[in-house]
């Protein structure tokens, strides 16, 4: 998305290079002139005394190159990835008792995030990993805490459904064939896990009420 720090009255902005196909381990913190972020790494006077330590020049150059490329191709990339995202969302929506998290239209071009009733996220991720698909989840088991994603809870998902969440992030290099594969694999894995879930059995027999429609 286009960012204009002046027009949008932005005081501070942080960017992670790996989010725009740059190297991992490097980012940018932009601060409007006059705003001084707290110094968290003390020592030498690098970066005008704001962050000590010799700069990781190679990574900075990589990030700059990635940023330039991302900005130059922003519109075409966004359009292409959005189209793939739409196909993936449509495909996953065909799974019964599944719902997209967040707004259908106003979301990042590459972000797909679903909740599936009756199953748990970590087992979903492990089985998808076996199929060569890397994803993430907001379930408690994947967070290391006892609660699932506070974001999913905040947008109104009950605990039991937040545990069954899946996030797939598309990149500029994702292909349509991969989208088709994701749809098939996720559908298969969700079905498989539901077949061994007592929670899903209770939902289908009416012993527990469904949270989603379908």
């Amino acid at each position, binding site marked *: 998305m286009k960012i204009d720090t002046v027009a949008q009255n932005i005081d501070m902005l942080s960017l992670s290079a790996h989010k725009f196909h740059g190297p991992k381990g490097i980012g940018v913190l932009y601060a409007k002139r006059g705003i001084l972020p707290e110094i968290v790494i003390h020592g030498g006077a690098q970066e005008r005394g704001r962050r000590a330590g010799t700069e990781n020049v190679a990574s900075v150059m990589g990030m700059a190159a990635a940023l330039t490329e991302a900005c130059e191709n922003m519109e075409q990339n966004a359009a292409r990835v959005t189209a793939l995202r739409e196909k993936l969302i449509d495909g996953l929506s065909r799974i019964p008792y599944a719902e997209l998290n967040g707004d259908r239209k106003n979301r990042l071009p590459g972000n797909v995030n679903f909740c599936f009733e*009756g*199953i*748990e*996220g*970590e*087992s979903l991720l*492990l*089985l998808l*990993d*076996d199929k060569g698909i890397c994803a993430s989840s907001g*379930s*408690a*088991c*994947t967070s*290391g805490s*006892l609660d*699932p994603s506070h974001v999913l809870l905040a947008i109104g998902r*009950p*605990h*039991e459904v937040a*545990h069954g969440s899946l996030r797939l992030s598309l990149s500029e290099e994702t292909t349509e064939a991969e989208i088709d594969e994701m749809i098939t694999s996720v559908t298969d894995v969700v079905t498989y896990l539901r*077949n*061994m*879930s*007592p*929670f*899903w*059995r209770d939902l289908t027999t009416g012993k*527990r009420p469904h949270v989603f429609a379908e």
Partner: protein
Amino acid sequence: MALYSEKVMDHFRNPRNVGVIENADGVGEVGNPVCGDIMKIYLKIEQDVITDVKFETFGCGSAIASSSIATELIKGKPLSEALALTNKAVVEALDGLPPQKIHCSVLAEEAIKKAVQDYYDKNGIAYDACQFSDCSHCAHGCCSGGEA
């Protein structure tokens, strides 16, 4: 995820004894969807021996692996042995579980005990209630001593 041993991954990818037993002699269900873990054990018992066992689980890799191996550990065994199964034995049989996943083995132990208790209750068999104390539910903190 080198978090899990080969044994855990095997039982997760190829779980043994998944399913239900119609008209089971004992059924035990533990956990709840709010916590993100539910295990259900079905037992077929003949002359105090577990002749068949099936499980269903809603939960993570450790939960599925724990319930799978637990059914293997009690299948064909006398009830007394099933009752003596500890979560430690489940963890050992899996070649270890990460510390934050130990509660999955506890759930497996509890599910088995609950199934046996159900069998005793259904058949009016007397038993020592202390053996089946429900307080162990509090051990994993999330359920705060019962249904949340």
